[in-house]
């Protein structure tokens, strides 16, 4: 899992297939990123542009991460879902509990102008 720090945002690239076999690795890589994700100091942005497949196992991990963030007043948002994943989110009603943006740039502009500026410079 590729993670890039942009100002106060950890940009996490979620890629490939996240199924019942690969989810333990996804969980062990994502949940540590939730640590310290409190208030303005660190926000989490999941870039899902390379995510082709996610089953209920991966959805469960996203839900755990989102709940932990909420409990510690942190912010976790998602960006650039492919149509198949959008449909899975719609069925699971994840679109009502997660903030989802059409692109990484749009997400950064909404959650952190400093990180958006850093992203433009890259």
């Amino acid at each position: 899992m590729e993670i890039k720090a942009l100002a106060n945002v950890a940009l996490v690239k979620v890629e490939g297939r996240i199924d019942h076999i690969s989810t333990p690795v996804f969980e062990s890589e994502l949940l540590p990123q939730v640590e310290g994700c409190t208030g303005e100091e660190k926000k989490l942005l999941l870039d899902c542009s390379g995510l082709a497949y996610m089953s209920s196992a991966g959805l469960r991990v996203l839900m755990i991460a989102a709940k932990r963030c909420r409990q510690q007043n942190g912010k976790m948002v998602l960006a650039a879902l492919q149509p198949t994943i959008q449909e899975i989110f719609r069925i699971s009603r994840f679109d009502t509990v997660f903030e989802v943006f059409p692109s990484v740039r749009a997400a950064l502009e909404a959650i952190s102008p400093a990180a958006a500026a850093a992203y433009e410079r890259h």
Partner: protein
Amino acid sequence: MNATSKAMPAAESASLIVPAKIDALLQCTEFVAARAVEAGFTPSRLCEIELVVEEVVTNICRHGYDDQPGQVELRCRRVDAQRLLLEFIDCGRPFDILAQPPPDLTVDLDQREPGGLGVPLIRAMVDEASYKREGNRNILRLIVRAER
């Protein structure tokens, strides 16, 4: 891996028998995906069918067999030009995945339970579903269309 597979002409059925283990998921999804490609399923629909197969087989392993050793048989048959019949057969304890209560998806994040999304996903993505217990076997029949 300990598995047997038998492919037959498109109009007939094909079957696959695998150990009831999460490790066998890929074989199951690939087996059904190959039949779905033959039947002209679109790439996005293929992805949905793979998801259905994964969720069903995982539930059989976890709940039908309680993660104990067992076997899962998959049968796949063309119903007509547009539809595939998928049958999942196992000898685990009586377990009707279709009868599992779905989680409440309407509540706020604080009240949402992580997990339990497999059944709502299956229900949304298949066109017909039925379950029966026959002797010591659970038989789940799903019909899926090439397009949704």
